[in-house]
């Protein structure tokens, strides 16, 4: 009896001792890759670079949605091109959207608030791109490569790093254009640090310029990069965009520099697509006109934003979605009557670019923004190829989004010339008439030198580049976005009314103002 007790006691003491020794609770992720084991070869760096490009088109690590990059918003809403497009197009005369999603109607009417989810989402997307690029630059330094014994990769990575800096500069351009004074964080800014200081629009502008100047020689020559990647053509276009709008951004005139960059682009291997509408079809990756595009693919690169949004949302009413290579209509986007009026004769204009309009069952005027059949439809992005074949997938189009194309360079050249940048006026007229000839199918739409005015160029930019996310930038540059210029539903009324000047800039998102006490909100908000 006593030995039993003793044994039992011994057993308990033993178990207690063994048990209490066990306090190590560390467990590391087993199914995800950590920093320690990810960068084992060049492919890993290439995949990370691919993410920086994919940040313009996909929204997470699963296509079309899943493992989202940006939180706090519907994943499809967080897509780069969709966000950029909505902020640059919806508050202009180019488009209205009929959906009631929170914050979306206010983009039509310029009555947005700092809490607007689309404003928030695009700001977050810009800084997602910037911080991911920063992380790429941190992970690919010579020191890091030496640590990992990968010095042999350094030369290849030099171009990768230049591309990362280009993409960061591109996003900073969008940031300074839409939001003005934003924080400037580069790869020297550590993760998890205290919130950064606010920089001025001029400081961001200078940073972007200096970055682009530094990396110029490390990118391939114009047209020499793989499709979808940045080269010196894309770089010159981005520089031209900055210079063209320098008066808005810094107050200084940089049109001469714009001409230099545009010459660099125009002398490159680019040429106009013979048929205007072919630039927006499922096989538009073959367009000789594209300088930098955001590729989408129905099989490999799927998103609910980008041209998925642009193609589906433009359909509704009597439109048969299948005719556009799509499974169904989303009943969203139309154009305002004011935009239709930019074409002589409206929708029946001899200008072939109006062939895009769909008017059957649609009214010109928009009494109710939410009713798709009010306002002409304009299905510009179509998931069919130039030979009439369907895209590879009826939901996720193959149509790539043209970020920069030659027609834009032509029109910028003409405008910079008229604004005293030193270009040749006859050259400018020739560029504009090249676009007119393509649009009319012959020279009947060509203009004379006396018709080549700044106002004409603004209208021509709308006719040529509508729904390509340029309109707000152009209207701001021409001073016609807020206090001047009226179109349907601007200011929240059907006939339109002017709005306050502060709306030339979007507000810094309310989330960001709260998370970063160093920031001062844009005036007016």
């Amino acid at each position: 009896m006593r030995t039993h007790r003793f044994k039992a006691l011994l057993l308990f003491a033993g178990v207690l001792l063994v048990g209490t020794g066990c306090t190590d609770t560390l467990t590391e992720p087993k199914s995800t890759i950590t920093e320690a084991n990810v960068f084992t070869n060049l492919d890993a760096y290439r995949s990370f670079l691919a993410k920086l490009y994919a940040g313009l088109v996909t929204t997470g690590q699963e296509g079309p949605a899943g493992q989202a990059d940006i939180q706090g918003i519907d994943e499809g809403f967080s897509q780069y091109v969709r966000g950029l497009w909505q902020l640059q197009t919806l508050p202009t005369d180019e488009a209205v959207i009929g959906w009631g999603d929170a914050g979306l109607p206010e983009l039509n009417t310029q009555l947005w608030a700092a809490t607007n989810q689309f404003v928030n989402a695009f700001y977050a997307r810009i800084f997602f791109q910037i911080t991911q690029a920063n992380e790429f630059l941190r992970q690919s330094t010579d020191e890091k490569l030496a640590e990992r014994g990968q010095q042999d990769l350094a030369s290849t990575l030099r171009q990768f790093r230049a591309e990362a800096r280009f993409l960061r500069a591109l996003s900073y351009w969008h940031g300074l254009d839409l939001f003005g004074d934003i924080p400037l964080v580069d790869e020297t800014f550590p993760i998890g640090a205290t919130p950064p200081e606010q920089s001025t629009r001029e400081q961001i502008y200078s940073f972007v310029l200096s970055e682009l100047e530094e990396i110029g020689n490390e990118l391939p020559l114009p047209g020499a990069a793989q499709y979808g990647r940045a080269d010196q053509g894309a770089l010159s276009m981005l520089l031209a965009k900055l210079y063209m709008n320098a008066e808005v951004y810094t107050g200084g005139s940089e049109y001469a520099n714009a001409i230099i960059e545009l010459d660099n682009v125009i002398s490159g291997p680019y040429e106009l697509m013979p048929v205007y509408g072919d630039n927006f079809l499922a096989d538009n990756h073959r367009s000789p006109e594209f300088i930098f595009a955001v590729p989408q693919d129905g099989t490999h690169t799927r998103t609910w934003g980008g041209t998925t949004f642009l193609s589906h949302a433009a359909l509704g009413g009597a439109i048969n979605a299948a005719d556009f290579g799509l499974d169904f209509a989303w009943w969203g986007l139309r154009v305002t009557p004011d935009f239709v009026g930019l074409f002589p004769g409206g929708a029946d204009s001899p200008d072939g670019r109006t062939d895009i309009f769909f008017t059957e069952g649609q009214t010109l005027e928009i009494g109710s923004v939410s009713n798709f059949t009010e306002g002409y439809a304009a299905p510009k992005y179509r998931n069919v190829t130039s030979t009439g074949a369907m895209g590879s997938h009826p939901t996720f189009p193959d149509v790539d989004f043209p970020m920069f194309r030659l027609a834009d360079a032509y029109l910028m050249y003409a405008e910079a010339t008229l604004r005293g940048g030193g270009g040749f006026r006859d050259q400018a007229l020739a560029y504009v008439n090249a676009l007119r000839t393509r649009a009319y199918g012959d020279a009947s739409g060509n203009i004379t030198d006396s018709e080549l005015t700044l106002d004409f160029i603004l209208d021509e930019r709308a006719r040529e580049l509508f729904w390509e996310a340029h309109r707000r930038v152009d209207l701001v540059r021409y001073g016609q976005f807020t206090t001047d210029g009226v179109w349907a539903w601007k200011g929240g009324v059907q006939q339109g009314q002017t709005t306050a000047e502060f709306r030339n800039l979007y507000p810094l998102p309310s989330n960001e103002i709260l998370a970063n006490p160093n920031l001062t909100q844009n005036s007016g908000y």
Partner: protein
Amino acid sequence: MRMNNVRSLLIALLTAFVSAIPLQAQETGEIRGRVVDADFGEPLIDVLVSVADRTVLTDASGSFVVTDVPAGTYTLMASRIGFRDASQEVTVVSGQTASIEVRMEVRPIGLDDIVVTGYGERQVRDLTGVIANVSAEEFNTGRIISTEQLIQGKVAGVQVVDDAEPGGGVSIRIRGATSVTSSNEPLYVLDGVPLQVGSGIEAGARNPLSFLNPDDIESITILKDASSAAIYGSQGANGVVMITTKTGAPGARFQYRGSVSGSFVVGQPDMLNAEQFRQAVQEHAPDRLSVLGNENTDWRDAVQRSAFGQEHSLAVSGGTEGSTYRVSMGYLNQEGVVQGSEVERISLSLAYNQDLLDESLNIQVNTRGSRTNDLFTPIGVLGQATAFAPTQPMFDENSETGFYEWEDPLGVNNPLAELDLISDEAIRYRSVGNVTAEYAFPFLDGLSVTGRLGYDVGKFERKTFEPSVLRSQQEGGEAGTVTRVNNTGTSWTVDLYGNFNRTFGTSNIDLTGGYAWAQSRDDDTRFFAQQISFDQLGPDGVPGSEIERTFIFVEEIKFASFFGRVNYTLLDRYLLTASLRRDRSSKFGPDEQWGWFPSAAVAWRLSDEDFVNWDALSDLKLRASWGITGNQAFDSYQAFKSFFIGDALAQAQFGDEFVTTIRPSAADPGIKWEQTESWNVGLDYGFFNNRLSGSFEYYWMSNEDLIFTVPVAAGTNLSNFVTTNIGDQENRGFEAAIDALIFEGRDGGFSWDASFNVSTNDNEIVQINPFGGGEVILTGGIAGGIGSNIQVIQPGSPINSFFVLRHIRDSNGDPIYEDTNGDGNINDNDLYEDINGDGVINQDDRTPFKSPDPDWGVGHTSLMSYRNFDLSFTLTAQIGNYVYNNIASANGFFAGLRDSNAPPNLHVSVLENGFQDEQFFSDAYIEDASFLRMNNIELGYSFITGPLEGLRLFGTVQNVFTLTGYSGIDPTAGINGIDNNIFPRSRTFTAGLSYDF
């Protein structure tokens, strides 16, 4: 000690010797006695008197006789419900009658009951914290599928909300929500083993506790305040639900309980009928008239049904003193009132208890397992049935599936086709058990040690098949989908603790200290195939497909703790409890290794003081407690920056090549548990031997370091949000409970035991931003728009308050819909109040308004009996809870008719409101959903004597009635207060019998 042993040995030998000798003559006598109430001397009937292996009952005069008792000295035991057991020595002399009077003291009801606490148990009279116990006889009745439903409405401050689906999700909130990001569900402790709630073991299952057979549950104890729950440290912040299962008792016993039931839908959403719908189309979308059919289809009726259910439970128990067992088997089958929904469960349990080593070692083995088979209604069927135009037919001979579908793909899909063609089934095996050894040291009175080894293993598989002919599949472009989700989980726990309990003079000291370890691993594997080439194999084979995806995620959790507790009692009336726990968990980041969780409580039994000498007062105790608990029910690996590889559909195009991406994620290496500091003051009272008893509680809790996934300053982390500990909120509330034995019907007379409980809880978010700004986090996704949210987390408002535009009302209080500013159209500027006064109505004018949490929760239970009949019912009520009527808002505007060539049905509210465009964020859709519900009522008849003794017949009605002003179908629209095609609540009629012999 040794002397005692020797003596008992001698007695045993002597007894054996004596009984071995055939007695020449029976040297016996008899015992005659009487049992009386010690206070009043009144005779007691039906007292169980046992002496010398014989048992008799007293008669109406309290008398009993035991004859033929062999001569000798015996201990006579008397026991009766409501009295303390009494014992008395009696000596029987051969041929004589021994007379005896036994006096029994009334036992104050409940005070001597033992309740389980963390790592121990305690008499009710000695409790210092807030612990509520619900025993089997008080449980809710009727068709109970999941254990939580047993205590719905039974305990003050405990809100139990089920989703009405058979075996579906049940949420418990003890004293309100303590967290936003982490789980708000309490810790469940099953027979001493903490269940790994939130782990993969229960992933995909409808409900974490649905594996348990409610018939096996003996009692459920709720540790409400921090001083009780702090012994569970970083797992205790949401309170603890301790579930004790039934064990065997000496003497063979056989129990069967079986029932059948029918369930019927109560209430339908108020959609337009075919005539109203046609008229609406005529007026507001005349060009859609051509697509309308001529039917009058009730789509909701078409997808619903009267549901049948049955349940059988069989238990065998028995054994001898020192060795008992109980084995039970259960079968349950319950259809849902929506077609396609069904649950079937087979369960088995075993409890075995063995004393060894002269009763100093006690071994308990407790294990149970179940197989649950869930059939699910395809997601969307209810919504489709709500929104499908009533003018359209159900079937179409010419379509591929035989079901009618709209020509326009934007149209609502036919729910009957989904029901017919989709299969969605889950099978889950789960077993939970433990071996517990308790050793009481014979040489040191009051010292014992306990070791417990627990396990929880589960395997889960869900298989879904959506054939390629299905309309919804063809629209997505991925026609034909097979999905398999497999999950296996294993969890082990080890608890080792010692207890020392001893009385020194007028002091009693009770010390507990120990160590706990828990570890679990879950493997989640998933397989998806899309664009399958062949429908005929269903979910069982994928001969070919265009897209296949696999997913594997392994999660390991480890958890180590030390804990200690002291209970000190002086003079039986001054009570003190203090505890301390130290936790370490794999979920904490490398910067936060250990957490401390202290608690303290004091109580004073005033009723035992000499200066309180009011006879009617049987109990009066003041209590106060304080404690810190934690919540670590958040995802693992939050502290690690991981690189996520993109899939084949999210590649980047480089030339003609598509490159897979990788992306680093944002992380906070300093993440740690959420912390709750809470205070409680309470009063227990009892009158008339506790025939009337109850308690009052007031508590306030501060939930700190709440984990939020919050926006971070742009540029400072790898995404716009990071998950970190930054928020604070407060909960405070009042609880009252009263239990009255209104009639105590001895001898089969009328007996009525009634209990009431009332509680309030006020929640307020204090801050969610480290810089103290008025941050806003939107929650509560709704149908309507994309990514629309109707609730908010904002400092100064209750958690998940509705976040709405304030609709301007007309003189009748109805929301207006007119061009008030005369600009020629009706838009937000006409309809809503300009809250921020900037002259423009936009999202900035949304404001917090009401909350889904009730101001008051009320519960009432009555148990009555008269002769062979028993009757019980449970009433629950909530006051001041609000619901967003999403069915009305998502279908409540005429523009919906024009948005496609397949007009969906509208909610009748549109006829009154006249909204042309969607008004998702209008406060017109926030409705007061206060209600009073008769949860269940049960009538039983028991055979007390005769050949059918032990048989009880019963009939139950659940959800008997609900009184509410809410216009939707169910004021308990889930825990989040958003009524969007929730599973309809049914009225269930159950008839059954139990047989116990």
